């Protein structure tokens, strides 16, 4: 195929698919009228595409999807580690608690507790919260509620 013919490759491949616009069709026809190599390529492309179109996609074993499901369900902890969304949402309540703690530390509270007292109380509360943190069955709402309860005490 000559160098000039290379520029017609996009039109030639699409001609086999029947997707050429009318002006593209005219342009290609004008070229293949004087280029037997490209005229042959147009025919070859159509034949090859027709052959490939005879290949059908095989659905696979009837239980294929169930087998995949069994594999992904078998390792929920590992998958959760790679699921950044679950970690982002799970840590959001922790971020909220830290923000509240920072507010208490900066402003003090009505009972006159110092920031170190607040931190000590929060640490004791957060031990219980930490247990909830790694429990995959605990929702974000429950985690936030437990954390706020611990901070407010």
């Amino acid at each position: 195929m000559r160098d000039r013919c290379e520029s017609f490759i996009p039109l030639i491949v699409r001609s086999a698919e029947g997707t050429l616009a009318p002006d593209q069709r005219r342009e290609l026809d004008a070229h293949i009228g004087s280029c037997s190599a490209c005229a042959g390529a147009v025919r070859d492309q159509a034949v090859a595409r027709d052959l490939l179109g005879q290949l059908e996609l095989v659905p696979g074993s009837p239980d294929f999807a169930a087998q995949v499901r069994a594999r992904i369900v078998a390792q929920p902890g590992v998958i959760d580690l790679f699921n950044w969304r679950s970690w982002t949402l799970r840590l959001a309540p922790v971020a909220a608690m830290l923000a509240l703690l920072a507010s208490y530390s900066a402003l003090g509270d009505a009972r006159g507790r110092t920031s170190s007292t607040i931190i000590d109380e929060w640490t004791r509360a957060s031990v219980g919260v930490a247990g909830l943190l790694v429990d995959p069955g605990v929702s974000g709402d429950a985690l936030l509620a437990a954390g706020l309860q611990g901070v407010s005490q």
Partner: protein
Amino acid sequence: MGPEINVRTPQSTQAGSVDTIAESAAWHVVHKRSSDPDLDLVPAAAQGDADAFEALVRRYQSRVIGLARSYTRNQSDAEDLAQEVFVRIYRSLGRFRGESSFRTWLYKVALNVTRSAHARRRRQQSVWGDSGAGQTDPPEPQTGTPDVETSLVRREAIERALADLPDDLREAVMLRDVHGLEYREIARATGAPIGTVETRIFRGRQRLRRSLAALLGDTA
């Protein structure tokens, strides 16, 4: 006969916690102008909904197995490889940003996994020799009508000719002429410019035409 057309069966996601609703909202903000038909399942699957992911697997399993089979030429190995693809997809759902359709992203992951497995097998064969594992399926027994037998012979010949193509050409013609992907989808999935995709399709088809000349009963 053209490639398989996916039947779109939208399924409503289960009402979930604030987490799920927030994630669904984020997804729909990203895709509000998109016509991605998989939006009915992907957000839920990304949240760990096994039912939603299994539905996605059913929707795409024939495509992924077909892609794997173009590398393995063995149905059993192809299904094993296809399972690896879907496990990788499940683990990577959190990284899907919606910059392309889910289908395009799925093909990109599938190509990466199948290419890696294929390269690994080639390295093992070069070191250990061909142990006989992963052999191509034996020819179909000739027990049908003449038309069925002819069809099977043609299919096997086409598959053999495809297997003989270089990987980049085989991928391009498979994705376009068997799987029906658009050129821009193939470009995104393979990481090649559209012009390169067009050239690969052109060359792949030309080689197939020459390889199958005998099947077609001519000397072209």
